C-alpha cells in the first residue's frame, strides 16, 4: 500500500542544516500494524509526519497505492488526508473550543461526503467508549478519555491508514492499555496502523517493529506470531 523510496528530510535554519531522515526505504502493506521505535530525535515523528503528508520530504519518492504523493499539490494533499488518513497524537490535539462530539465530527468536516454524519460520529464514539461524554469539552475529560476521543476522530472517516504518534505517551498504564486494545481491535477489523512509540511493550503488540537511529532505519522485523 505504501512505498517510501530514498526519502530524505533536511531542515535548514540560519546556520545549521539538520538531516532528520536519511534515504528511508519502507513498504507497508494493507492491514499491517507497524510500530516505530527509537530514542528521542531519531526521526520517528518526522517519518510519521511524512507518511501523513503533513511534512514534505526534501527528496525521494512516496507512493500511496499507485499515487505519487510527492508530486501532489497542497490542496490535493489536504483532500487526500481528509479522505484516506486518520491521526492520533501524543498530546491528543483536540480543539479546546469544540465539544467531544464536534471534535470527532471534525474528522468528517473536510471530506465532502455528507452521508449520515451524526450516525457515523455516534458510532465512532461508541466504538471507543466515549459516547457518554459527547457534550463535554476536552478540558473536562481525563487524559485517557481525551485520547479515546482523538481515536474516535481518527477513525470516524474509515481511513485506509491510521497514524499514531506516541498515542500512549501521555497516559498512565491502565489508560495506555485501553488505548492499545482499541488500536489492536481496529487492526483486527482491517485497519492499517503505523504507530510511533517509546514503550517496548506496546511496540511488541504490533505485527512489525521498526527501529530507528539518527534518521535511519536500523532494524525492521516482523513479530513472531
Amino acid at each position, binding site marked *: 500500500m505504501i512505498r517510501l523510496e530514498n526519502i530524505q528530510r533536511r531542515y535548514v535554519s540560519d546556520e545549521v542544516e539538520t538531516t532528520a531522515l536519511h534515504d528511508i526505504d519502507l513498504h507497508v502493506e494493507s492491514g499491517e500494524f507497524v510500530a516505530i521505535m527509537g530514542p528521542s530525535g531519531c526521526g520517528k515523528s*518526522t517519518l510519521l*509526519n511524512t507518511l*501523513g503528508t*503533513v*511534512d*514534505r520530504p526534501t527528496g525521494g519518492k512516496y507512493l500511496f497505492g499507485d499515487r505519487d504523493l510527492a508530486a501532489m499539490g*497542497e*490542496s490535493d494533499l*489536504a*483532500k*487526500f*488526508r*481528509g*479522505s484516506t*488518513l486518520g*491521526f492520533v*497524537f501524543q*498530546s491528543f*490535539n*483536540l*480543539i479546546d*473550543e469544540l465539544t467531544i462530539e464536534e471534535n470527532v465530527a*471534525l*474528522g468528517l*468536516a*473536510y*471530506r465532502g461526503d455528507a452521508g449520515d454524519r451524526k450516525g457515523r460520529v455516534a458510532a465512532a464514539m461508541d466504538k471507543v467508549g466515549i459516547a457518554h461524554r459527547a457534550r463535554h469539552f476536552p478540558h473536562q475529560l481525563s487524559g485517557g478519555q481525551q485520547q479515546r476521543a482523538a481515536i474516535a*476522530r481518527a477513525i470516524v472517516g474509515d481511513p485506509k491508514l491510521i497514524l499514531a504518534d506516541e498515542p500512549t505517551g501521555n497516559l498512565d498504564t491502565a489508560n495506555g492499555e485501553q488505548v492499545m486494545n482499541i488500536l489492536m481491535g481496529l487492526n483486527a477489523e482491517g485497519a492499517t496502523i503505523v504507530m510511533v512509540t517509546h514503550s517496548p511493550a506496546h511496540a511488541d503488540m504490533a505485527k512489525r517493529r521498526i527501529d530507528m537511529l539518527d534518521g535511519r532505519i536500523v532494524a525492521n522485523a516482523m513479530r513472531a506470531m
Partner: protein
Amino acid sequence: MNRFTLLSLYRSLVRHKLHAALNIGGLAVGIAVFLILGLYVRFETSYETWLPDHDKTYVVQTVWTMPDSPINGAFAYTMGGLLDQMREDFPGTVGTRINGGDRAGTILADGRATRVDAAQVDPSFFSVFPLPLVAGDHATALAQPGNVAIDQKTARAFFGTRDPIGQTLVVSMDKVRSYRVSAVFRDLPKNTDFKLSVLMPIAQESKSENWYHWGSMALATYLRFDTPAAARAFEDKLTAFVDRRGKELDDSGDRPSKIQHLQLLPLTDLHLEPQGSDSGTAKLTVVTLGLVGVLTLLIAVVNYVNLATARAGLRAREVAMRKVLGADRGVLVRQFLSEAVLTVAIAALFGLILAELGLPLVNAAGGLSLTISYGIVVPALAVLAVVVGVLAGVYPAILLSRFPAAAVLASARSPGGGRAGTRVREALVIGQFGLAIAFMIGTAVLVAQTRHVRSTDLGFQRQSLLVLTSTVDPAVPTDRKPSILTAIRALPQVQDATIANAAIGGSGEANNTNVPLPGVAGSGPSLTWVLVSPRFFETHGARLLAGRWFDDAHQLDDSTDRKSADGMNIVINRRALTPLRFRTAQEAIGKTVGGSRPRTIIGVVDDLRFDTPRNPVPPTYYIYQRRPETIETSVTTIRVSGDPRTALKSLAGLWQRMVPQVPFTAQTADERLADFYEADDRATRLFGIGAGLAVLIGCVGLWGLASFNTARRTREIGIRKTLGASSSDIVKLLVGQFLRPVLLANLVAWPLAFLAMRTWLAGFEDAVPLSPLFFVGASVVAVAVAVLTVLGQSLRASRAAPAWALRHD
C-alpha cells in the same frame, strides 16, 4: 513598581515591537484625536470667559411667540430704547447697549476709508464690560459724547508709535463725526463673538424714530447683576414690564407679553445659543465633536484592553514563575497596572506629539486656530494616563494574576482567558466596530447633506452674480445712488444691476408684517416684505410662476411716495401662496389682500433662497420702488458676463473714482453663500477626520487581535489541516471568526447612527432622505476593511506546514 517591572516592560516592548507599536500607536492616535477635539470643545465653550466678571453679565433676549410667524424664537437684540425704559422702571439697573460691531463703521484718514468694527455703546459700557485698558480710565473713557475708545490694533494702524490718547479720529457710522481718543483697550481674544475695535458713546441724534418702537430689534442690550439670584428676580419682573410698556405690540387689547417677552441669557451661553428659529447647530456640533473625541479614545482604550488581555495568556508562564517566586496577587495586579499606566503614559506622549503635528492640518481643515497650552494639557494628560491606564489595565491585571501557577507550569499550553475571555474580546470588538460603523454612516450622511445643500436650487442663477454692500453705507450720498447705479450698468462686463433692501447672503433688512386676508378674522399671516427697484428679478434670473414682473408702464406698481391706504401692487413668492390661502400661483394673480392696506398680487415668483439653507424661505412679498435711492438699506446686486473676478476689479476701480470715502465691499454670490456652508463643512471635515481615525484605530485593533488569535490558533490550524482542511477552509474559518463580531456591530451602529443623523438632518429645511444605502454602504466598507485586515494573516497561517503548526505552542 521596581526595577524589574521597568526592565521587563522595556524588554517586552522591544521584543514584541509590532504589538507595542499597535498598542501604543493606536492609543496615541486615540489620545491625539481626544486632545484635539477636546481643545476644540474647550475653545467653543470658552467664549467670553476671558471677560472679567463674565458670570455677572447677561444679554437681554427678545422672544417672539406670534402665531404663524416665520421669525419666532429668541433673539439677542432689543429695541434701542429698552434700557432707558428699564432704568426708569427699575432704578439702579446697570447695563449697556452695543449698536454695531462687525465692520459696522469706517475710519476716514488721509483720504482713505477703512472699514472697522465700530460700535456705539452707553457711557456705562466699561462697568458692564470691564475690558482691560492699556491707556485711559474706565470711568471717563466714554463719559464725553466726543470720546472714542479704540483697541491696540486700531491704535497701531492709525497712530503708529505716537501716543493715541488725545488724537483725533474721524469715524463714519450713521454720520461722519470727529472723535478724541480717550482710551486704548487690549485687542479682544479669539474666543469672543464681539467684534469691537472702536467704541463711541451713542449719540443723541443717532437714536432713530424707532428707538422706542416695541417690536423693533435694533441693537443688543446687556445687563449686569451681582448674583444669578438677582438676575432671576429681575427676569421675573419682565413680563409685567412688557405688558406695561409694550402696549403697541398688540392692538387687539390682549397682553403684549403673549406675543413678545424678554428673558436674560448668561453672556457665556450666547455663543452656542441659536438665534430665533435657527436650529441649535453650533451646540450640536460641539457636543457631537466632543463625543467623537471621547468615543475615539474609548475605542483606543478598548483596543488596548483587547490586545492586553489577548496577550495576557502568552504571559501566563511569567505570572506562574513570579507566583512560584513569592509574588502574591496584589503584587501582580500592581505590576500589571503600573505597566498599563506606564504604557498609556508613553502613548500619551506620542499622542501629544501627534496632536502637535496634526494641529496645523486640523486648523486648516476646520478654519480654527487652536493651540496646545502645555500648562493645562500636560497635567491633564498625566491624569488621563493614570485613569486610562487603570481602566485599561485592571481587567488584564486581574485576569493575569488569577492564572493558577501549578496548572500553567504543568501544562504545555498557555491559557488565553478561556471562552469567557474570547467572549469579552468579541464584545469589545462589537462595541468598537459598532462605533466605527456609526461614525462612517455619520460621515457619509454629513457629506451627502453638505453636497446636497450646495447644489440645491436657490431660485436664482448664482453664477456671475456680484453683491455690492458698500451702497448701504450711510456715507454714500443718497442723491448719488442713481448715478452710481447708472455707471455700474455702463461697465462693459455688467449685464444688469439692481438695488434692493435684501440680497444673497442675508445682507439688508428683515421686515415682517401681518397681512389680513379678506373674509378671514384676525390680523392674518405674518409675511416678510422686501423693497426692490427696477430689474430686481431679471438681474437675479428669477423664475416667474404666474402673472408678470413689475414694470414702469403700470403706475400702481411703483409704491414710492404712495400712502399704504392707497393700495399697491406686489409680487409674492411661492411660499406665500399657502398662508395667503391660494392653491395655485395662477389663482393668486389679481387678488387683493392686506385689509386696510390693500396689496394686489400681480406676479408669483419661485422662492429666492438668499439665506442659510438651514432655515425655510419665509413667505415673502416684494414691493416695487422705481427710484432706487428711496430704498434706505440699499444693497446692489450685479449680473456680469465673463470672469466675475475681472468684473470685481473694474467695479472696485469705478467705486474708488466715484465714492472714495466709502470702502469697497463686494463679493460673488458663491462667496457669500459659502459663509452659510462653512460651519457645516467645517463640522463635516472635523467629523470625517475623527471618524476616519476611529476606523483606523479599530482596524489596528482588529489586526492586532487577528495576529494574536492566529498565533494562538496555530496548533488548531495544524490539527484541522492534518484532518484534511484546505488553505481556503482555514482562511474561511479565521476570517469568519472576525466577521461575526463585525456583522453584529451593525446592530449597535445602525440604530445609533439613525437616531443621531435624524436629529442632525432635522436642522435642515431641505434635507437628504436617510437612505438605507448609507447604512448598507458603511457596513459593506466595514466588512471589507475587516476582511482585508485579517486576510493577510489568515492566508499566511493557512499556508503554514501542518507539522510545524502542530509543534507550535
